[in-house]
């Protein structure tokens, strides 16, 4: 005898690794994610040959959100909304800023947890998480932060994802989609899903880089709305290890953002200066 059981236990996952991706996703640029192994059978290859190419799907997505000119016309974006950890009673305000070419700053505050800050100032990626403290991002996490902070990444896919391949026509979140495998410059794979009818990217599956390692992630993009000639998703749902968090955008502005907005907080700036001093010292020691 088997009985159905609906669990009410949930877990949550606010924190680093998600914030940069949030900006990217809500601006309809791809998240860095990793997909499974590619199909290898001849039959599958034949089917793939009949599929739209990855570049065609990306181009269709660009058109669906307003076209390349509309995207380029937007130099700054500020989004304000709310982050919620589903079923956990955890929620708080979220504010995200992004400017071309690659500046980002995000702030999420959760009662009882504190304020999570994350940014990329064109060179340095950083995060201040109340649990782990201020931290400069390095290696894969830094590369991800840099990529996700590019406001017009969707127009630069060739550069950031040297390999792009449509793998199948399938379903994602019960919607008909084309799956596109992307391989970034670090060799990491990701799968993005483009709606077969609308052309919009509606999600991705893979793993997100974090200082703790790779976290397998599913991201769902919904509620596209037009803002200054460009469609942007207003709901981002991320699932990690059975946990689900949702960011709902309530307001979007494309007003100019002062560069000062992206200046790293004092603690981060001190770490940057210290890192430079250490590197200089190492150079001196070597010479």
């Amino acid at each position: 005898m088997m009985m159905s059981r609906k669990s009410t236990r949930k877990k949550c996952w606010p924190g680093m690794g998600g914030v940069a991706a949030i900006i990217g996703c809500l601006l309809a640029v791809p998240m860095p994610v990793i997909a499974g192994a590619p199909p290898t059978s001849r039959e599958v290859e034949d089917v793939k040959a009949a599929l739209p190419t990855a570049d065609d799907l990306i181009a269709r997505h660009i058109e669906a959100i307003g076209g390349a000119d509309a995207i380029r016309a937007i130099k700054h974006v500020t989004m304000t909304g709310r982050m919620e950890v589903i079923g956990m009673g955890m929620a708080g305000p979220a504010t995200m800023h992004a400017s071309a070419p690659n500046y980002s700053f995000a702030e999420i505050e959760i009662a009882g947890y504190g304020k999570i800050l994350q940014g990329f100032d064109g060179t340095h990626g950083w995060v201040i998480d109340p649990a782990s403290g201020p931290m400069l991002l390095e290696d894969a996490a830094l590369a991800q932060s840099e990529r996700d902070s590019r406001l017009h990444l969707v127009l630069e896919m060739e550069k950031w994802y040297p390999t792009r391949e449509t793998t199948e026509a399938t379903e994602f979140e019960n919607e008909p989609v084309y799956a596109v495998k992307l391989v970034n410059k670090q060799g990491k794979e990701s799968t993005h899903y483009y709606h077969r009818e609308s052309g919009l990217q509606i999600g991705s599956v893979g793993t997100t880089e974090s200082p703790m390692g790779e976290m397998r992630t599913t991201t769902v993009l919904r509620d596209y709305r037009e803002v200054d000639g460009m469609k942007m998703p207003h709901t981002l749902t991320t699932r990690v290890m059975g946990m689900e968090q949702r960011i709902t955008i309530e307001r979007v502005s494309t007003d100019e953002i002062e560069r000062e907005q992206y200046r790293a907080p004092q603690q981060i700036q001190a770490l940057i200066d210290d890192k430079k001093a250490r590197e200089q010292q190492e150079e001196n020691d070597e010479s």
Partner: protein
Amino acid sequence: MRLNRSQKYVETDIMPQMNRRRLPWLIAFSALFLPLFAQAAPAEAPDATDADRDNGPRDPESFQRVATFEMAWQIIRDTHFDPEYNGVDWEAAHGEFLPRAEAADSNEEIRSIINQMVGRLGQSHFGVIERSAAELLDAEAAHHEADPADDPEAESDREPEVEAEPYNPELAGGPGTVGLHVRALGNEVTIVRVAPGSPAARAEVQPGWKLEAINNRPLDSLLEVLNEQLDEASRELYIWQAVQLRLDVPAGEVVRLRLRDGEDERRRIHLRSEPMPGEMTRLGNLPPMNAHLETEEMLIPASDAGGEERRIGVIRFNVWMMTINQEFAQAVDRFRHHDGIIIDLRGNIGGVAGMIMGVGGHFVDSSTSLGTMITRDSRLHFRINPRRVNQDGEIVAPFSGNLAILIDRQSASTSEMFAGGMQAIGRARLFGEPSAGAALPAFLSNLPNGDVLMHAIADFRDPNDTSLEGRGAIPDEPVSHRREALLEGRDEPMDAAVRWIVSHPRR
């Protein structure tokens, strides 16, 4: 060795407000990265029509017993961190035990069947706790007036040697404490610490006294039930929880104690609870918790320290919640140039696991992993973030002096993950007793018959790839409280840590 302890900051004791579910909650969420929480909620009753369709109608009690079995099996099937179930064919186990469950005539029998089934896993943190035992852990019970007939000494309790202090409405309401820390030593509950300035201290209660009854309720019956229901590893933790929650009544209420002093004389003392120090904090659906950090500075005179005065900082906190982060950083700043720091995690039952990366970073200058959490599809590394900048934005070096960590059977979850991890990377020396061995994220789920299923949902391994589950962090220097030493005013685990720091020059 003469210790000159100059008390700093708040010098009152810490007693976490707990209820029956709080400990499991802490254990559950603390082993996860950042705040991963278990929202303990009653498991849904199984669908009766499904059961009837498969097996025909039953009487309600029989149906409930089978439903209890099914739910326990299914919960583990869905949440066990190892998809291979530690080598057990879980489907086959269902087929083997179901007929016995269907034939069971009592809750006791179904409990035994479930425990046999989960016993196949060969892992701790899996088992059924009887409803009556679970009820004994319920915080509400602590507030109920006991029947004086429960305690043959109750009559004389009405004339205590020390009366409760007058009621002060300004100090009433909210979480409270009388300032007592207790531990189960053998088959007795002993006071191991009296918070300076607390109601207990004013009543001149001393460490080393035995606690025999609370509010006319003798503790021996409680100990008897818990001894029968729980395994050895869990027993001390739950005895401590059960007793402590009876002491930590809301501020303004009176706790009536029957004690046995150092001369083995019976003492009857009534204490009025005062507001618990610290900050109430609430994270998501978790119940509010009182988080409190205190520090202490010890000055060891040159005559007792090989010709040179030694300075040692002690940091003690009751739960790993975010609100203690700032105070912890301030404490490290204050002790940064001391000879040693002692982190006292005795009685600290855990909290937000992600904090170990930040707290550990105050003591380590490189990004080292303190352990790995392993679920069915992920491996997450608790990597230390070296704290090279203080809260004022000034560059600092992480503390490089001797680091001692005190643990005991009540140090659970995040506390033992931190202690075990710091020990494994060679950064800290542990003193005290093995920790609770409750480092796994374990949930307690209600079953249809009112029993409670304990079940782990992830594994945690220290940097040596050793699981702390069921084993705990093992002290480098095992030292337990002894009543004789407590009565002499000595904290032997603390003294051992101090001796080690004094005898080892700062690196």
